[in-house]
């Protein structure tokens, strides 16, 4: 395979793992949202490597535009939830959100 494709894929996987690391180990809600964003950047790179491999950049671009919209809506909703959680609990620590349990 082309070296550039492997490089893109490798960096994408590293970013996904770094984001998952943040999601698993951090307790601040804003850091968790940033973890999700880092995972999204990694997935974007993996999409791009797939497009370069298939030599079909047009199709991958249209998928990426959709993905960026999804990412933005997700970030906006999660940040609004974080603001509300901070107003209610006085902190962004996810351990204070145990009231969400059913």
């Amino acid at each position, binding site marked *: 395979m082309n070296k550039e494709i492997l490089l893109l894929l*490798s960096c994408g996987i590293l*970013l996904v793992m770094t984001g998952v690391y943040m999601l698993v180990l*951090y307790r601040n809600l804003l850091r968790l949202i940033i973890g999700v964003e880092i995972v999204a950047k990694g997935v974007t790179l993996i999409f791009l490597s797939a497009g370069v491999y298939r030599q079909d950049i047009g199709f991958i671009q249209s998928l*990426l535009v959709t993905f960026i919209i999804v990412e933005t809506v997700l970030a906006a909703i999660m940040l609004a939830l974080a603001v509300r959680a901070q107003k209610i609990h006085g902190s*962004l620590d996810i351990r204070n959100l145990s009231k969400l349990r059913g």
Partner: protein
Amino acid sequence: MLLWVLLGLMVLLSIGCCIFKDLLYVAISLATISGVLALVLFLFGANIAGVFELSVCAGLITVLFIATVSLTKDSDQKVETRLPVYFVPLIILIFIGIDYFVIQWVAHSMPASVVPQPSGTFQRVFWELRSADMLGQIGLIGAGVFGILALFRVKAKEKKHE
């Protein structure tokens, strides 16, 4: 060489997001990752996706993050994690090891090249082949807007009660 530098910068900034204490620095690092990603997209000819990444992710989401950090007044909060921060380089080394084995597996299991079957230009794919998906995207944007409105409408009701 430029690709190596850009991708290395992205990985370093993502590690910075794990290490920085101030959330403002973390938000700026995330914006820089988006900017560098936009450059990578431009390098591979994905110009429209690059413009979206630059304007929406590096611009809009960063503004939202910085506004949230200032609204929650939480920018100088200490890093609370289940593992001490000095474990981060060790974890990253483990990740690089896993990454190496995954890439070796991919390089050996995938064919070296595929017969290109281009779907056409971005305009053709987006407006013709995936025209039905436009409804989904409009619905998604609507869901985002109404979701945020719903979250802040509760606040207005609470104010009335007060």
